[in-house]
């Protein structure tokens, strides 16, 4: 028996316990005159709760399995680099006016400014 497992009840003893439970229940019902045995009622309610907990645990396990599966699938796709690839020489596509390129003109140099900053922004001379 492991630390987490439940001790098994001897079948004969289990049968005896069951009979005793029925007997106690019957006597209680007779003595109390109750329409419903309160012990059985409580036991049924607990059983319903246990079944609900078990159902939710199963749902949770299924969800974990799905997440693990999705993560594994995504990882496999990442590792596979599946999209097709082509190559380009950047010099063939880089615009001539890219800042810092040899033909970038003067827009990044002070001497090349075509306007000045003011409280009213860079404005045209015709603007008030």
């Amino acid at each position, binding site marked *: 028996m492991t630390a987490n497992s439940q001790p098994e009840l001897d079948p004969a003893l289990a049968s005896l316990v069951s009979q005793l439970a029925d007997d106690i229940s019957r006597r209680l019902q007779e003595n109390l005159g109750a329409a419903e045995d309160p012990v059985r009622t409580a036991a049924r309610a607990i059983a319903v709760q246990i079944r609900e907990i078990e159902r939710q645990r199963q749902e949770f396990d299924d969800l974990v399995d799905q997440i693990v599966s999705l993560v594994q699938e*995504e990882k496999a*796709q*990442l590792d596979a*680099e*599946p*999209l*097709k*690839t*082509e*190559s*380009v*020489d*950047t*010099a*063939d*596509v*880089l*615009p001539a*006016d*890219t*800042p*810092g*390129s040899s033909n970038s003109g003067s*827009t*990044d140099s*002070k*001497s*090349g*400014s*075509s*306007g*000045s*900053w*003011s*409280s*009213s*922004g*860079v*404005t*045209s*001379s015709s603007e008030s």
Partner: protein
Amino acid sequence: MRLFELSRNELRALLRARPATSSIAPTRTLAGWDWADLAEDANRHNVGVLVRQRIADAGQQDALPAEVAAAWLADARHAALQHGLQLRDAFAVSEELTRAGIRHAFVKGLAYALSLYEPHWLRFGGDVDLLIDRENVETVRQLMRKFHFAQAKFQEDHQQFWPATAAEIRAVENQHYELAEFNKYVELLSPPPWLLAEPFTPRSPFGFGRHGDRLMFCSSIDAHWALHFLFADSRPLDEVRKLDSGLPVLSPEWSLVYSVFKLYVEVFDRPRYGFTHVADIVALLNAGGIDWDRLAQLVENHGLQAAAYYTLSACQELADAPTVPDSLIERWSVIAAPDEQPGKSIDFGPFVPYLAGSRAAVSLGAPRRGVARSKRS
């Protein structure tokens, strides 16, 4: 400090799609601004690269703290390379579609980058949006495979992609007006030393990453069969024009009505996001050439009067000059009775909340003066 707290003129200067052509003497220094916060806010709106460029244009980049300047320079270089890579794929796909007789147009990011922004890469995005006719959906799906594109799913930060299953593709296409996104990895050879080097931070909408010791870019194309379900019965491809580069884009009117819709409706529930659409709308207004009668028709046919009123009256205050006809602003400012356009008109009220994170008056940048003539206010 956040973008919406800047003055109108400051916003106008920082968000302009093209450089200013003249100047006045500087009277206010940028050095005292809370640049760490402002840069974070601008990056969230994906206008950090644009703001940085306009500061550089004005010769004021020294006003930026060293960390912000270095991070924005790294972002700008990656934005330029991303634009170049996306443009390469856009040309290839467009040529193939044209050869197959399939009409199409590029919309939003790449279309605006090429037609409105200088340099073009200032308006970069995570993907390229392509509009096709619904009847060509399956043909386009097949053609995309020629260019190594596969329909893929991806992480939220767009750093990892996997081929989507048939069920996943079906799920996306049943819920959206586009095909499940097409993606492919592009290995970057002869990389410049700054590629994926600090202080650059890989993040959406950048598509750069590493696979082992290889530097990669994930190229993405979104093929839409409608701009949105709202426009499912419309035919914007009837009004396509070609850019000098040969790429087809939507008419200015369709572009404007779509950006108005995007700014007002689609991201209404995404606080602190949307200045990239503001910059687009201001750029469209500044570019001119808008047929206002046609625009009014599109706005009113799709029940977008409130969207047009709120967005255009605010955005034109950041434009070089007010260009929206007063008569249209006046007309769209009237809140229609529910029985006048049953089930059609879209009116969620002022659009500023998702820009600023709180409900506020409909005006961008102080001083506020935009709603004086509004019947809605």
